[in-house]
């Protein structure tokens, strides 16, 4: 029983180390003047200060969705892949009479 507990502990530690370490990439989000809606990467709010309309955040690798929140609802803007030690730039733009911003991705 004790050896089973030890094995579980070992595997747990190993997974723990993997989970909290390195597989991250970066997302740069650029907004446009006047944009002030809350943005989310998946379901995590971007609390970044958006100095000069842009923010750079660390993000776990894999498929990521940029969403905005309006009236208590999530509105997906775009989905992209975050790769290890690479940066994806997402530029938000709004054109003409559009109500929802569009994403331009630079990988």
């Amino acid at each position, binding site marked *: 029983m004790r050896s089973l507990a030890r094995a579980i502990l070992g595997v747990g530690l190993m997974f723990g180390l993997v989970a909290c370490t390195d597989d991250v990439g970066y997302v740069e989000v650029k907004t446009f003047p006047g944009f002030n809606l809350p943005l989310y990467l998946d379901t995590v709010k971007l609390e970044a200060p958006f100095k000069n309309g842009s923010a*750079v955040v660390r993000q776990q690798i894999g498929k990521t969705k940029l969403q905005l929140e309006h009236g208590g609802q999530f509105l997906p803007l775009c989905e992209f892949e975050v790769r290890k030690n*690479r940066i994806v730039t997402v530029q938000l733009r709004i054109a003409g009479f559009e109500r929802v911003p569009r994403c331009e991705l630079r990988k």
Partner: protein
Amino acid sequence: MRRFTSFVASALLIGICTLPAVSAENDAVTPVEEFSRQIDQLKNTFTELEKKIEDSAKTIDGMTDVEKARQEIESLRAIVGELLGPVSDNGPVAQLGAKALRHARDKLKSLEQETRFTREEQQYLVGEWRKLVEETERAASDLGMARSEFVGLLRVLQTREDFIDELMQIRRASEAVRVIRQLANDIRAASDALKNLIRAIKPPGV
């Protein structure tokens, strides 16, 4: 005993995952002091990694084996990622900077309304906290500039790597080697800019 083992395991995991944040929770140290200490540590890390970037540029410059060069670029991306992590907007140092700034501004505001001290004492304290606010703002802004430099360098590395990949797909090895040489120059230029930037970063209150 089993309970103790699982407690130790949990404590270890939490400890490992929250290493940079632990000291920030200590009430005895103000966020400004903690921010200052973290910047000091960060400058050392930056300087060490900066040296690795320079060495890497040297290695890349002499390379004719495209596959090896690609591996070197990949490890360089890991180094730049390591630099960018703490200063990214959701990274520990950037967040601590925002906390330190909030703390210093709140402190200044409360001291300006303070009535316990003599006028001279109050003015002295207000003056000192005003200095700290300015220095903290400057340090946060310097880290912001460092963040932009690291983002720029990471972008150069990944686009050059992608371009080299494309060239190899159409069997243009000699062109790829030329791109690798050019990249070595770009890295050196970025490395010089980083060196100046890192030297200029000054922790608040020092």
